[in-house]
Structure formats: C-alpha cells, structure tokens
C-alpha cells in the first residue's frame, strides 16, 4: 500500500453551503504533502474530516488501506491552525493529559516528554503555567504534544505561525527529521516558500474542489512555459538584439553597463532550446542560459485565477 491516506469523492455540506465537493486525494507514505488553497477553500474541513472531528456526507476516507475508524485517532497527530492550551494549567501536567488522551500510558508519556523537552531545550518549563510563557514558547509545547504519540500521519496547519525565524527553522528541521523517520505529513499553509522547500506533493483546493494535485516537480514541469533567462556579453550586442527581436519572442531587455552585459528573456517553442543556444553562441558570448521554472506561488495564483476566469 503506497498511500497512507486516500479520500474518495468526499463531499461535505453545511446547510446550503458545500464545503467540499467530490474531493479525491492520495497522500503518499513517508513524504510531505502540501495542502494548499485560498481561504475558505475547504482545507480545514478536509483536515477535520481526516481527524474525524466532522464526518463526510458522501465519500470515504481510507487510512493505511482501511476505512477510517475511531481507533485511528491514536495514529494521527494534528496541529490545528486555531490552537492553544489551557492557560492556567502547568506545562508538564497539560502535556501529560493531552498525551494520555491520545492513548499513551502516563509512564510512557513522561519518558517521551522528557526526551522532547531535552531535545528542544525547554527542560526548565515543566512546572510553569502556559500563561507565563511567550507565544513562541507555547507553540513549542504544542508541537511536542502533537508529535509525542509518534503517529503515522501528522497534520500541520500553518505550523510556523507564531515562531521567530530561528525557532521556525528548528521546527522545520524537526519536521524533516520526522519525515526521514518514516512519518507521513500533511502540511497546510499559505507560505509558498516553505511549500517549495518542504513538499514533495501538493494538492490545490479552490471553492470546495480539488483543482490540481500531483508531484510538485511534475506540476512545475507542466507549468513551464519555455521561457529562458539569457545573458550575453555586451560587445556588439545592439545589432544582435535587433536581429533576435526580429525572429524570436523577446521580452524584458536590460543593459547591464557595469558588467558590460545584456540580459533578456526569450519565449521558445518547446524542444527548441538547444537550437537557440547554438544559434546564439555562434554570434555572442553566452554567460547565462537558464529556464525559468514557475514558483509554487506562481502556480497557485495562476491556477486559481484561471479557474475563476473560467467561471
């Protein structure tokens, strides 16, 4: 069984509003899966269905090859976007309580907590109350509580919000380490640079429907538009540029006087980049020739916009 979690045509309605419409996803094991979409697209509803907080009106969810059942909650860890802890409860006590609710024994929970507190360098916090901690500190506790029961599937909704860059990096490294340890991760965020950095697969939800999913590298390939970034030496470039503009689709030419070079982008018919490069290197000294790959952000915006203009 390749996928840890599969949803089949999941539909959820709230009154007259449809929050999810026939959403089918395959979330592969042992990788990070980005669940993306504008606000109100249905991400949170889908995540809540996976956590069995709500139940789908139609469709099925399979966890590890079998239909999702109540006992699976011990194998799922969920860090919701709207998160918090009991303010007047002590850190250690609270972490123990939440771990026990996930089915860990008290002794086991204590042992693992000690390990994690040491790992994140917060051993002194055990007897502090949450209200004495800063927001970032509380987020660390929250992270530990989410992963403590060593679930097969982890769901992070905006995990880096509330962290300073240093701590965000620590948490990012921990997430990567968990993935390397064999955990499957669903990652929901609006921060595209972290999607780029972490996710192998993505799915894009828009207005209750899935409009795109697959391997990020494949999607990027599909979204390539054969635009290349080119730099050439400035020597006798002007006449060359005029020639190029005559026979190719050239955009955004900039003269770089300091380095004596000319930068431009060119749109080529697919599969003709080699011919173009040969043609160009015969006439000028090419210092840079790079295909521009769309960022996840560009793909996100482009897909959502084209979807909206189609409607």
């Amino acid at each position, binding site marked *: 069984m390749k996928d840890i979690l599969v949803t089949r045509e999941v539909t959820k309605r*709230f*009154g007259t509003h449809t929050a999810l419409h026939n959403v089918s996803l395959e979330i592969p094991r042992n990788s990070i899966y980005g669940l993306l979409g504008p606000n109100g697209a249905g991400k949170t509803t889908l995540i*809540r269905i996976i*956590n*069995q*907080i*709500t139940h789908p009106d139609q469709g099925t969810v399979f966890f590890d090859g079998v239909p999702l059942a109540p006992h699976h*909650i011990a194998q*799922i860890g*969920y860090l*919701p976007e*709207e*998160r*918090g*802890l*009991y*303010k*007047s*409860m002590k850190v250690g006590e609270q972490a123990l*309580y*939440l771990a*026990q*609710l*996930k089915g860990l024994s008290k002794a086991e929970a204590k042992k693992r907590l000690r390990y994690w507190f040491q790992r994140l360098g917060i051993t002194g916090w055990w007897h502090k109350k949450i209200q004495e901690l800063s927001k970032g500190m509380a987020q660390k506790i*929250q992270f530990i*509580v989410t992963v403590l029961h060593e679930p097969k599937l982890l769901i992070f909704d905006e995990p880096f919000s509330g962290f300073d860059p240093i701590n965000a990096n620590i948490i990012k490294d921990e997430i990567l380490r968990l993935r390397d340890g064999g955990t499957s991760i669903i990652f929901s965020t609006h921060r595209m640079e972290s999607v780029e950095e972490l996710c192998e697969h993505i799915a894009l939800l828009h207005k209750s429907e899935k409009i795109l999913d697959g391997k990020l590298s494949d999607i990027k390939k599909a979204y390539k538009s054969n635009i290349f970034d080119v730099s050439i030496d400035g020597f006798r470039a002007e006449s060359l540029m005029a020639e190029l503009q005559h026979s190719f689709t050239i955009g955004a030419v900039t003269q770089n006087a300091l380095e004596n070079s000319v930068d431009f982008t060119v749109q080529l018919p697919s599969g003709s980049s080699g011919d173009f490069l040969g043609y160009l290197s015969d006439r000028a000294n090419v210092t840079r020739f790079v295909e521009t790959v769309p960022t996840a952000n560009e793909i996100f915006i482009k897909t959502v916009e084209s979807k909206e203009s189609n409607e």
Partner: protein
Amino acid sequence: MSKLSLIIRREYLAKVRNKSFVIMTFLSPILMVGMVVLIAYLAKLNDSEKRVIGVLNNSHYFSNTFLPTQSTSYVQFKDLSLERAKDSTLEMGYYGLLYIPDAPNLEKISENVFFYTKDAPMTTVLDKLEEIFQGRLFQQRLQDIGVSAQEFARVEDKFQIKTATFSGQRNLKGINMVKAFIGGGFGYLIMMFIIIYGGFVMRSVIEEKTSRIIEVIISSVKPFQLMMGKIIGTSLAGVTQFAIWIVSASLLMFVVFTMLGLDISVLGQNPSFAQGIPSTIFQIDESLQLYFWELLKIPWLLLITFFIVYFILGYLIYSSIYAAIGAAVDNETDTQQFIFPIILPLMLAIYVGFFSVFGNPHGPIAVGFSLFPLTSPIVMLMRLPGGIGEGGVPIWELVASIVLLVATFIGIVWLAARIYRVGILMYGKKPTYKELYRWLKY
C-alpha cells in the same frame, strides 16, 4: 484510564485548584456563620436595651399595672402637674411620659390617656402600652357584665375540626405546608446547584473556546465525551464544595455558639409567643409535638432517594443546555439572551411550588408542574414529603414524571451535544436561535 475519566479528573482538578473556588469554599462558611452570629448578637443586643417610661398616674385604676419588664421599666411621678412631669421626663432622659388623667370611670380615663415622646414613638413600645390598657379594659368590661375570666374563656374557645385520612391517619392543619417546605428546601438546593455549577460548566466551555484548545482536544476525544466529562467533573467539584460548606458551617456554628454563649433559639424567638396567654402556649406545645411526629413520619429514605434521582437528571439536563450555550457563544457577555430562558422554568418551578403545592399538593397545577420535565425535579420534590401511594403522590404520577424526565434528558443531551459539536468550532459569530436550529442538522 479511559478518556472520559481522564477528562473528569482534569475538569475536577482544574475546578478545585482554582484560586477563587478555593477561597469561596472556605470563606463562604465563615461569612455565613459570621452573619448568623451577627444576627443573633444583634437580636440579643436589641433585647437588652432598656427603656424607662415616666408615668403620671392620677387614677386609682392603674395603681399596680405598670410592672417592669425585660425591656421597659416605669417610673411613677406623684403629685406633679403635667407640665412639670413633662419637664422632668425630658431632664431625666426617659423615653416618654405616659399621662393617665382622673375620671369617674375607666372608659373615660382611657379616652384621655396620652403618651408624650420626643419624636413619634416606636410601634413596639406603643403596642405594649396599648396592650396594657386593653387588658385592663377587658377585665373591667367583663366585671361590669358579671362574667368571670374563666367563663369568658370557655365561651371564646375556638373550634378546630379534626381531620384524618380514610386509613385513619391523623392529619394536622398546616402540615402540608411544613412538608412542602422540606421538599421545597430540597428543590431549592437543586435550583441553586444548577444555577451555580451550570454556570461553571458554561464558563469552562467558553474558556476552552477562547484559549483555542478545543480543536486540539477533540482531535483526540469525541465532543460528547468532552462535554459529559466537563459536566460530571464540574458537578463533582460542586458536590465537594457543598459537602465542605455543610460540614464546616455546622462545625463553625457549633463552636462559635458555644464559645460566645449565644443561644441559637434566640433566632427562632417570636415576641408574640412570649406575650400570649398561657392556654395558647399549651396548645402550641401540643401541636408542636404533633408536628414533630408528623416530621418523623415523612418518608425520609424515599425523599432522599428521589432527591438524588431528580437531582442527577435535572442537573444533567440543565448543565448540558449550559454547555451548549457556552459552545454557541464566544464570550460570556453574549450568553445573556440564552440564559434567561433557562432560568425561567427554574423560577417558575419555585414560585408555582410555593403558591400551589403548599396549598394543595395534589391539585391540577401541582400535578402538571410535577410532570413537566423542566420543572418536575423541583415541584415533585415539594410533593414527595407527603409520601407515595394513598394520601401522597400517586405512583403513576411519580413513574410518569421520571419517565418524562429521562426521555427529556436523552433528548436534551442529544440536542445539546449537536449544538456543542458545531459550536465549539465556530468563532466570531454571534449566533441566533435560527442559526442554532440549523446547527442541529449539520
């Protein structure tokens, strides 16, 4: 440990460790006892205040009438003019001057009696003086028509019909009221408990919403488990608090009263008893004894058993409504519109209980409200001290009331759980009743 017991344990500990809860638990008995002691002390102080009244008596009818009592003593002026007597009264700082003129007969004298004081006199003092004159007039009038006091008492003897049930049990006038008071006490306890601890449940739900922990928790447990755990945990904390209150208040009361040498009976003292004629006192003694026997005959075991049944069912119904309200709103100020409809049936139960159950515990209103599930825990308890079966609550009514209550309990908890389930994940909306209705169908 099962998840439910984990939640109950946490809710219980969170409640009993709460500072204000601890303070309330230990301060309330002290405040309560302090107040009772203060009242007893003030009552004693009030009694010990002595008033002196000057009496200018020009008539031979009242030579031996003004005997000093616990709170009043009299000073007789002799051979003084009214003006001089007034001056002396003021000078000596007496409370007032009673002027009794001379006249050929008692009726004439009484008509012209005056009581002079600095300001308007206290009614209690005035009542006492009037009583003296009334007694004297009464005596004189009897004498005038030649009837002895004994003869008059025989004429005036009031008639009381004796009542009994068909099975031969003696009834006592007013016993229904006493019994309803006892049941009412239990009912009142239920109401207080619901209002106080239902509110705690609600606030605890709101706290979970505002601290945003709710979604973390319900990814581990079912919302229903969380709701029930919260209700049970909070009520256990409440029972603990009540137990501490009862035990410590009675201990404190005992200690304080023994130490200060105050007599608890001061509180129950009724001035009219002390003033009454001996024969009435005797009557009261007799009926007190009867009341006592009647109280012993109240089926306490039955009463307490059903108190527990009605308490648990009633509390669960109301506190799950409170939990649903807590889930529906974002902060406590938004709860007002929903709280009133809950308190209403509780208040209604208490008032209906006091007005109709006391008069007639088996009348149609009393029966109706003791069947209606939202009021039955209180009203039925007011009826139950009369026993069940013949002469008491018919067994079918008791059974029907409990069946209805259980059915309502299941229905309300189901509804509340649905509202709760949706509400805890809703932020930033001030819900209307229409919206709550829509949530039921999610």
